């Protein structure tokens, strides 16, 4: 079945009423696809059945959040982006005595582990804390284990090498029963917690904030809300990094941020 516009509205308002998660500012085309996929996977023939489960089963609702959001991610996605982090950004923030980085919308953590590896190779890991947040509790559970499918390591090793990585990528994990378990000393520098960009506030100040491929799921107003939150969490000369097809050009931040080079990394101006 496919949900009608008014059924989608009913789902959005039920979720808001029962759990306080507000999906009304999400890009509608993608949200429609997610809802229809959820109805299909759950074999629903009436939207009312889904609504009733959402109302009565909080555990099930956590899964719904995971299904409504898109959690696809990769290590070293867009190698050129990581190359710019290595060459241009880390040398600058590396001069600080202590570094704080925020991954907003970290999904299952691949991006956070990629960053920890970069920091390690620049001898900055020990003085850095990586804050990794997401709206979905499910993905955070996966992220904090640092265990990813082994079959993806070949692709990740290639991405790593194109990003300028010189080591043997396999030194960062132990392979076992089809899984790759990343080193505990990487995990030791990470703090995972649930945080909703729609409704939660700034919780610290950071030298670098990464929010990649999350804003594509928000409409313009909600994007501006999230960008303001990042602005509140960045000191002057702090850095903001977005996904490769996201832009702040037409946003509330455009005039106070300067793009560093070709990649989607901006510096907050004084």
């Amino acid at each position, binding site marked *: 079945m496919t949900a009608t516009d008014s059924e989608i509205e009913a789902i959005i308002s039920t979720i808001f009423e029962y759990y306080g998660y507000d999906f009304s500012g999400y*890009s*509608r*085309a*993608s949200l*429609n*696809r*997610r809802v229809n996929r959820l109805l299909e996977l759950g074999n629903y023939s009436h939207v009312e059945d889904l609504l009733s489960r959402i109302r009565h089963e909080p555990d099930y609702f956590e899964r719904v959040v995971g299904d409504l959001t*898109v959690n*696809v991610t990769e290590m070293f996605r867009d190698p050129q982006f990581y190359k710019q982090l290595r060459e241009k950004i880390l040398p600058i923030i590396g001069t600080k005595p202590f570094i704080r980085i925020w991954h907003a919308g970290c999904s299952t953590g691949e991006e956070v582990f990629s960053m920890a590896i970069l920091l390690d190779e620049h001898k900055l890991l020990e003085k850095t804390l990586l804050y990794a947040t997401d709206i979905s509790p499910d993905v955070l559970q996966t992220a904090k284990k640092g265990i990813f499918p082994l079959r993806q390591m070949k692709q990740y090793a290639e991405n790593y090498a194109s990003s300028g990585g010189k080591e043997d990528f396999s030194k960062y994990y132990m392979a076992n029963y089809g899984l790759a378990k990343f080193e505990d000393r990487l995990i030791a520098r990470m703090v995972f917690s649930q945080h909703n960009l729609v409704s939660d506030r700034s919780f610290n100040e950071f030298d670098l904030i990464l929010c990649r*491929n999350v*804003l*594509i*799921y928000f*409409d*313009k107003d909600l*994007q501006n809300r999230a960008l303001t939150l990042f602005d509140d969490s960045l000191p002057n000369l702090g850095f903001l990094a977005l*996904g*490769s*097809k*996201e*832009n702040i050009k*037409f946003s509330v931040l455009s005039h106070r941020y300067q793009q560093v080079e070709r990649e989607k990394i901006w510096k907050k101006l004084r």
Partner: protein
Amino acid sequence: MEKAALKLVVIGGSAGSVDVIMRIVPFLPSDPDFSIVLVLHRKSSDDTTLEDVVSIKSAMKVIPVEDKTMLETGAIFIAPSDYHLLFEPTGELSLDVSEKINYSRPSIDVSFESAAAIYKNRLTAILLTGANSDGTAGLISVKENDGFVIIQDPESADIPFMPANALENMTPDLVLDVDGIVNFLNSGF
């Protein structure tokens, strides 16, 4: 909603389709009353190359799509690789990194279906050459929403599989070779 009033052509293609596009764009009107969105399967490393060559050959303005790019009349929009491209009720284009479909991202089906839901009978969908079955389901949904469907004549296609697969599963309004597609786009349809 106002922006969604425009006349839209969405062209989907896979293997061999860049050559077809190169044969179409030099002959497009310079200030048409429609806009074109290209959804082609290609490697991410080819992104800027395709944008450059289309710009050089075309009299229409060429706009590489980023998230929430606003559609405007008279321009050619090019979908980036590695993202699905969706059409919003606001007239904006949005991007999505969800799972590949038929081994493809962008998925032509996803773009056709999403355009059909918004643009209805103001949409023309054109499916070109390719080696997989992407596009067929999307064209069916375009027809269900009163849109206009053109399939490249498999005989004129570099790789006939994709248009042939669509033809086996649905009835388009027109089957055209590359010159036919050029003439159609100049016909004021």
